[in-house]
């Protein structure tokens, strides 16, 4: 089970209280009129689907509603890092 401490409201949330937002750091290509079909496909659909440390987005859905970034091991579900989007380091997980 996934348990993450929200870097905004500082509450410990488990997976039922959180919403998963997929891989982080996927940047929309620009400007739209000069983006090729391949680039759009890569942006919309292609994913690293990492096995291991994955940079991803979560939302404190049942709590404060904020989105934030997490580095999680996709095999063990161990959370290695929790970050706010402005880059300020929040905290590694306690166990």
């Amino acid at each position, binding site marked *: 089970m996934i348990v993450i401490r929200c870097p905004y409201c500082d509450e410990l949330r488990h997976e039922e209280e959180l919403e998963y937002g997929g891989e982080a750091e996927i940047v929309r290509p620009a400007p739209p009129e000069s983006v090729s079909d391949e680039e759009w496909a890569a942006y919309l659909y*292609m*994913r*690293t689907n990492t096995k291991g440390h994955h940079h991803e987005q979560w939302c404190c859905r049942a709590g404060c509603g904020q989105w934030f970034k997490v580095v999680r091991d996709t095999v063990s579900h161990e959370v290695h890092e929790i970050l706010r989007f402005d880059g300020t380091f929040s905290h590694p997980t306690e166990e």
Partner: protein
Amino acid sequence: MRYSLLNLLAQGFNGNKGWPTAWRACEPKSRYDAVIIGGGGHGLATAYYLAKEHGITRIAVLEKGWIGGGNTGRNTTMVRSDYMFPESAAIYDLGLRLYEGLAKEINFNIMLSQRGWMTLIHDRHQMETANHKTNWLHCNGVDGEIVDRDTVRRMLPHLDIDGNPCFPVLGAFLQKRGGTVRHDAVAWGYARAADRLGVDIIENCEVLGFERQGDGIAAINTSRGRIETDSIGVAVAGHSSRIAEMAGFQLPVTSHCLQAMVSEPIKPTLDHAVISPETGVYINQTQKGEIVMGGVLDLYHSYGQRGTYPTIEKVIAGTVEMFPAFANLRLMRHWAGIVDVVPDSSPILGATPVSNMYINCGWGTGGFKAVPAGGFLLAHSIATGKTHPTAERFGLERFVTNRLVDEGAAAGIAH
């Protein structure tokens, strides 16, 4: 040895000591005409149809664990072909039709039980959607019908049809040709049939990387040595992105954990395979008597091939809502598989950016029903270098041309 009543009797008198092993344990050779990565149903079926339909027999199937140890041996065994779009119906019904003749063809009892697949209808909107889908099925030449509430009551005597205000039942969609197939038998049957045609099935052999040559691949590095090959078929389900990464491209796939569980065995009580779109639970009773239950997939990306309590709780709660009597059952086992989810819930079949590598993936939560079709179509790609007409709409290029086959939206829950 052919499996037959006569041999069964003879072996019985002989204390069952004379059964030969179903397939040879092979040492990998240094070179093959074709190598299939992944010893699940799709990979084994690919090897079988390559040998049978195309006469290519210098083939190896490389499996990192044991045959059928992936999703093929972990699924809830339900088969059906009630997909909406004509191109999907063509693929899934090909799968079901091949299953219908498979036991005889490969001389292995796959225990196909066409006990009827029922999707419960809980409200008027679902009734409309079900009618819409049924009309589509008829246009596609696939069977399916709507049955009313009283028929559901007769077919599922233990379903709480009157007492449950949250999940009223107005009727059900029924595909009579749907049902269950013994999952291990599919893996073992195809493995044995392929082996008899000369295919090397190599277990405990993990693919670790590729040696590139031009725009193709010349050799595969595995945990059991280097293997040269002319062409490669990939059928590794939840690990497709890993193989693609080794080969230098990306896939529109995310891997998720899908869980299932079984109760202790009881006497026959549930005659059909049933799904409720409202509770998200699908359920059937095995020939051994266990009640098999599954639910929706874990919504976050995962390679953790194990169950989790929140999902177990949801599946059990849904089951008990539908069949209150099952609250008395004890849970025997629960487990998970890693499924390959694609944005449009349709498979990816055919060519890849690597010239001699072909892929079969993206079946997500529902590819067991399509094992014979997936194998048949991947074999065609490997043997001819061209995509079979039935698979044409399912190529990787559809994500660039944006011509998705959105069965997630069309056929509802993707199982």
